[in-house]
């Protein structure tokens, strides 16, 4: 049972991007959970507390990259899971279009949220 097995066709751009975003997300998701549940407590979160964190450029950029990479990784993962289940033909094209639109909408809304948290106008 030592042969290589992966859900993705290896070598493709999406395959590589899924791995690169995974490596980034492992670190940032763990950081996010630790910061907002152990260092700070979720039940004590206030707008001004969030605002103070998001006004720090490095934190803002990290969180925005977190949004973009998580969206890509999640939406691409859903797409590949559906392809594994046998999605094909027109359905595959339609699902791909819907997922791309949903992903872009999430990034737009998430960016508006990030700007609002940093005290800008969104």
């Amino acid at each position, binding site marked *: 049972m030592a042969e290589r097995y992966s859900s993705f066709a290896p070598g493709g751009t999406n395959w590589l991007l899924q791995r690169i975003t995974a490596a980034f997300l492992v670190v940032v998701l763990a950081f996010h959970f630790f910061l907002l549940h152990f260092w700070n407590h979720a039940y004590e979160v206030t707008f001004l507390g969030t*605002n103070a964190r998001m006004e720090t450029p490095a934190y803002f950029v990290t969180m925005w990259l977190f949004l973009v990479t998580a969206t890509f990784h999640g939406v691409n993962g859903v797409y590949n899971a559906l392809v594994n289940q046998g999605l094909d033909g027109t359905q595959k094209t339609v699902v791909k279009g819907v997922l791309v639109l949903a992903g872009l909408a999430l990034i737009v809304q998430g960016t508006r949220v990030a700007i609002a948290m940093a005290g800008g106008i969104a």
Partner: protein
Amino acid sequence: MSQSYDRGLVEDFGRWKEFSAGMWAWIFHKFTGWVLVGYLFTHIAVLSSAIGVDPGGSAAASETDAYTTTLQGLESLFVVRVLEVGLLAVAVFHILNGLRLLMVDLGVGLEAQDKSFYASLVLTGAIVVASVPTFMSGVSV
């Protein structure tokens, strides 16, 4: 170069009694992935309450703005805390098994891929149990 082997259809869930450790890892990774992407959309929806809050306004200063009251209101619910513990379990497993998958992709330690799946499960359980007091503090049924 990659190789493939005939594992049978893992998509055929009716064969679950025949599944090996690696196949269970695959299924758990899919399931936790679905939960996490669903949560991501929900999370941004909830955090959207930050839009329109004025950082210099009196509502933000007195912690009565829409964002603060929405988040603290949700956190005051016992069921939300239970769901958060579930989310932690799902996220920790996905992270640990994801590290395992990166190793598999790099061809590192393939002979121990089943053991590393069991290790992911045990470590997830330990981290979640140890985190319960933190996640459940300041809330009652």
